[in-house]
């Protein structure tokens, strides 16, 4: 119950993040997959940038991390990156 409540808060927060390229929020753009939120407030998600070479992916990943971390009761965020040319590098940077 608690986890469900937290998950819906995380989803809502994610839908407030707007991709500066398109002006649409990242949930509407289908960029976030496999969202998991545990009762302890540990969040995991997969971020699939809109293109494999999109340089905005770094800025968006950063915004995602900061936004979720700012939520009450959230202890940690782990972002996996897929379909991106430098996925390893971006994952490393954003999860630091």
């Amino acid at each position, binding site marked *: 119950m608690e986890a469900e409540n937290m998950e819906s808060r995380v989803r809502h927060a994610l839908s407030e993040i707007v991709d500066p390229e398109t002006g649409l929020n990242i949930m509407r753009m289908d960029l976030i997959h496999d969202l998991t939120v545990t009762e302890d407030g540990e969040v995991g998600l997969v971020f699939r940038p809109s293109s494999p070479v999109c340089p905005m992916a770094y800025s968006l990943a*950063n915004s995602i991390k900061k936004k979720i971390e700012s939520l009450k009761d959230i202890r940690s965020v782990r972002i996996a990156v897929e379909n991106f040319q430098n996925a390893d590098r971006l994952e490393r940077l954003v999860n630091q």
Partner: protein
Amino acid sequence: MIISIASGKGGTGKTTIATSLAAVLGSRAQLLDCDVEEPNCHLLMKPDLQTCESITVPVPIVDMDKCTLCEKCGEVCRFSAILVIGEQVLTFPELCHGCGGCTLLCPEKAIHEGSRELGVIETGLAGPVEFVHGRLRIGEAMSPPLIRAVKQKINTDKIAILDAPPGASCPVINSVTGSDFIILVTEPTPFGLHDLRIAVEAISHLAIPLGVILNRSDTGDREVEKFCADQGIPLLAKIPHKRRIAEGYARGDLLVASAPHYIGLFLELVQTIRKLTRETESGLKEAVL
């Protein structure tokens, strides 16, 4: 006088018209190819190019010894071109517009400017015609800054003929702004009409007199002619489709070389444009008075 040749739809014959107009005017003309993404005028004019200038835009370089990761740069940048992520500052030169904001506002003065090449401008002579073109570096997204740099070479002692890119958005507006007259080239098809309407609307805000040349005029339908008549847009010329001319163009021959009987048309065109430009000027003066 500055005459721009534009179109909504691509491939209607802008370069065909621009190059023949310049060739017919000879030493009176300067031809500036503003279609910096795909410049074609040089293929028909075959200029002897004499100068080549690299055009760049400034981009940020961060000195990590001075950087305190305060994130001011990332906050200021509206193009996501500089960003603090983790313990690093990443820059994305390809997104940078060269506004200088991050460099100016970094509290530690940790940023200085390098450069990114937009493309090159080449100048020369095609017989007696002065020739200028810009060529965008492949991979460079932004054409307007290079187009503006090409236009800085306009020689006001000549009749400057500007070959604009296709479309009706920012690159085209950047090309045709400041012209005395705009020729819109189109074809008599639904695509040609649809894109002509868009181009006319885009240009109407600039209050520059315009006229239409209808290329391949004996194909398609009569809707473009009707549109011009309804809107009071002068139809400056109709050029029928001729296989011989198309084949000449394919080989890189000027229209007036494949079909010399068109030389008169281009000379008349200049007179018509002068007349229409004078009429607009006096019309504007009357409106002001």
